[in-house]
């Protein structure tokens, strides 16, 4: 038994759900999280002087309606004014599945969520010692299906 933790873009949740449903994975736990990767939630763009300046949390600013135009250089926030430390809203999916189902789940999640840009997310596979269905008390693999 393995736990699959996937951190994905908010807009990819619905396609991921239906894709997982089509391969027979129905039980998923969702949570709203914020996160960042090695880019620290930033986008690097060249500024007029030709040096690199970091644009921080632009998605967050756009989402909150604080700015309208992401490409306007007026809104490129200097490093020292980091907004919420560059954490961007993401969705975390957690599911526990049988060992044999793990490769197909991973392939499906990668196929649906891959846009080729930074911020597509990560998938982690962790071992699980046991599972119990609270209603019936079933243990192990029968508790999953």
């Amino acid at each position, binding site marked *: 038994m393995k736990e699959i933790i996937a951190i994905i873009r908010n807009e990819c949740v619905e396609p991921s759900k239906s894709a997982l449903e089509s391969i027979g994975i129905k039980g998923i736990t969702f*949570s709203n999280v*914020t*996160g960042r990767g090695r*880019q*620290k939630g930033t986008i690097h763009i060249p500024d007029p002087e030709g040096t690199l300046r970091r644009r921080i949390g632009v998605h967050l600013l756009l989402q909150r309606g604080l700015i309208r135009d992401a490409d306007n250089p007026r809104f490129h926030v200097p490093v020292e004014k980091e907004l919420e430390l560059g954490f961007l809203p993401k969705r975390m999916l957690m599911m526990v599945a049988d060992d044999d189902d793990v490769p197909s789940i991973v392939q499906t999640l990668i196929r649906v969520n891959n846009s080729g840009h930074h911020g597509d997310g990560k*998938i982690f596979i962790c071992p699980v010692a046991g599972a119990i269905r609270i209603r019936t008390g079933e243990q192990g693999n029968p508790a999953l299906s």
Partner: protein
Amino acid sequence: MKMIRAIIRPESVQPVIHALEKIGIDAMTRMNVTGRGKEMGISQGAIRYTEIPKEMLMMVVPDYVVARTVTVIRTEARTSSTMSLDGGNIGDGKIFVTDVEEAYTIRTSEKTTGTERV
């Protein structure tokens, strides 16, 4: 590879993140949680709060960085105390370390196992 989940006070999130950045850990996930420890919450006069808001930081790191990461989180998340010399108060939080067998980067379909950086 290990997953480190630290449940800490919301006010110590920023110092912890800055300290982790200094040792090269930039990638992490944050979530708001509520919880209680073995003290079963806190009492304020006649009112008892059984769920206290905390912040959970989650990161996956190679095995050889685990000890250093835990030390850094501990140092930053521990609040100063008038009761003991080395500081620390009830409610400073917990750190859990669990196994991760594989990690995938969705953008590149790249698989990471063992001691590589995620």
